[in-house]
């Protein structure tokens, strides 16, 4: 099993925390893991991308960065940035799309149209059938998405079955001390949402 996961969105959405949880958890399960966070402008509302690569073969050689067309899974946390990340996804790869838009000031002022969630899902459905549209997410989005990811990951690749509800919950409890209850609640909401999505795929 060798999976390349790209996450994309904006600073402040908690992408780095989500990427850390997903990769640390894989690492604890004995996988060879690489994580790259491109977060230079995170604090200033800029684009943030995390690249995770997981392999159950400790001898497999791979670099930290994921090239165009090489992502097995793409998790898009903001509509505009997810549109910009289309080329990452390999043909037929799995994609988890979050219905959240942050419209830049200039576009608000000029009343320019911002791409909709429907346009986003349409764009991606041209490239893959394995599409999980998270239309009604709950805050905090990163925890909700962790729930969705945990629910759908084993269906994307059996090698990802170690992401189980109970074990990821334990992982969250170990890593996050602040607002644990709220985070777990949102995670569970995301997990249930992810399971409902699986029934439709």
């Amino acid at each position, binding site marked *: 099993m060798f999976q390349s996961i790209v996450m994309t969105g*904006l600073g*402040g959405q908690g992408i780095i925390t989500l990427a850390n949880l997903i*990769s*640390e958890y894989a*690492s604890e399960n004995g996988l*060879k*893991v*690489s*994580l*790259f*966070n*491109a977060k*230079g*402008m995170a*604090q*200033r*509302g*800029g*684009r943030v991308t995390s690249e995770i690569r997981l392999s159950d073969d400790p001898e*497999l*050689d*791979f*670099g*930290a*960065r994921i*090239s*165009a*067309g*090489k992502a097995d899974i793409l998790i898009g946390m903001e509509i*505009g*940035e997810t*549109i*910009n990340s*289309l*080329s990452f*996804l*390999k*043909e037929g790869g799995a994609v988890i799309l979050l219905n959240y838009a*942050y*419209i*830049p*000031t*200039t*576009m*608000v*002022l000029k009343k320019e149209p*911002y*791409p909709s969630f429907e*346009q*986003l899902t349409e*764009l991606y459905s041209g*490239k893959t059938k394995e599409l999980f549209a998270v239309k009604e997410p709950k805050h905090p989005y990163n925890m909700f998405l962790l729930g969705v990811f945990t629910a759908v990951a084993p269906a994307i690749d059996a090698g990802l079955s170690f992401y189980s509800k109970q074990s990821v919950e334990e992982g969250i409890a170990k890593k996050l001390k602040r607002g644990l209850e709220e985070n777990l609640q949102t995670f569970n909401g995301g997990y249930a949402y992810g399971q409902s999505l699986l029934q439709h795929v």
Partner: protein
Amino acid sequence: MKRSIIGNQAVAYGALAAGVDVASGYPGTPSSEALTELLHFSQNNNPSPYVEWSVNEKVAFEIATGAAWAGKRALVTMKMSGANVAADSILSVAYSGTKGGLVLYIADDPGVEAGMPEQDTRLFAQWAGLPVLEPADPGRVYELTRYAFELSEKCELPVILRSVTSVAHAKQEVEGEYTYKPLGRKPEFEKNIFRYTKAGSAICIAQHEALLDRLAVVERTVRDTGINMMVESGDRNGLFLVAAGALIPYVREALSSWDHQNLSTLFLESVYPLDKELAGKMFEAAETILVLEELEPFVEMQLRSEASRLGWNGSILGKLDGLLPRVGKYSQEVIGRGLKTLASGMAGHSAATSRPVVSSERSDPGNEESAAEQPVAAELSVKHPITFCAGCPHRGTFLAVNRALKKIGLNQDNTVVTGDIGCTILGMNPPFHTCWTEVSMGSSIGLAQGFYWAGIENPVIATIGDSTFFHAGIPPLVNAVQHGANLLVIILDNGWTSMTGFQVNPGTSEQFQAKGARRVDIEGIVRGMGVENLQVIGPFDQEQSIEAIIKALQQEGVKVIISQAECALTVARREKRTLIYQIDSQKCTFCRSCLRETGCPALYVTANGKKSKHGQVMAIDPQACTGCGLCYTCCKFDAIHEQKLGG
């Protein structure tokens, strides 16, 4: 033991394992976390090395050099642009060499993920005459940092440890000791003017010769370590693949989907000076060589020059023949293009080849990629311009500049405002559009003088952050005072080096300075230079700030305004908010002045409007608002009000 760490942290732990005594640096993405980690270690462990964020890279390098000349081990860290700042001393110290291990960690940024030029430090190293190690991944960073100190001492030369963003920020498991092993050396500095001064041509000529001799020692020393690895396929097709540094794991990744048993490889992590013996061995067996390296054709040029010297008449595929780009980070597509050309080029190159060359039957990375490169729906593509954080004091300063200019009949399109490196340059972005230029650390003040002496009629304003002012803004301000340029310099003093991750600088408040360190006062420095027209403002007080700027613009000579308020992010990490602002949806007319003028990311549009004709109103995210009140100064309808936070 194993830990998941990024490449920059691996530099820190490699240096600790090597017993580094002194470490210095100046923050710069993507290099900063190396010294941050060492500083953290030194504040929490005893014994520990001496670690400091220096005022600039040149000073940092000189501190490390002094320690190394006294026989201690020293590390200095910086981004590639920082090497330019330190260049004067680096080139001179290369002539003198070193006694204790002296390692320069410099991080490059192919693909420009952090800003600034795609400068290739390897060319800089060649210019200075210093050896370069280029680790492939965080684990190798740890190993080669340790080794760099040994190499430096053995060859008596500073060693450049060069990494790139993809290695510096990659988090992987690294086997290491994670402890500090001080060597306990007694500092001894030998008085030797022939080695440690440049006084006289005989001395310099001798030092130049010594430098070349030392480089020859480097070549032999590294050869015995196996850092550069050649694996011959045993096939007589003469196909060689050479890959350098950070590209090695990506090349291995690409090869895993190729049938490549008949391909010979040479993986280089010591790229300067070129191991000519190893190259010669390759030329004996090679007919076609593909060189894979990011940015400049550095290894390729050395190989071509050695090939020419040896009279080798095979072919080298790389950048100089136009096959591969000199710009940007290499993707699997680019690597695949190289491999394909190596395979097909060879087929036509030699009729003597009896066996099939590299075959791509299993899968073809090149084709796989092109299928993926379908046109992104360009019409849907959007950009999120980066802006000042909610509560950033710089927002207040640029707002005041724009408002002051407007008040005296000028605007940001007819008044030159030079910008500088760091968060303050975001004044070039919407909605401010205030800054016109960004060149290098401190250059705002020098450029502004040029515009003035060129005869630009409207007043010229230079804007610069506090850390940037300390780093390289002081000499150009001295120059302006001496020559009497008519100029307003605004120092945006938020007390931290924020853009790179909130490092301390000389102006940081006393309470956050390291033990034994003290604060240096910008106001005192500026007064000491003889600047008479000096005002200190608080950027959230718009009336006072606008008045101060107008007053300064009406005065002759050098004027300085220090705009002082702490970085909103460092405040937020430390203190609870006591008040925020909220918008009354009953009063908001959706004129959007607040958003148009401040561009604050805490402002958003919501659909709860009753009075507004659009059915929409502005709102403030209560989680993001810091209570700075700048939006309040924009509202003509009294719709924005304070809200006290309990607790």
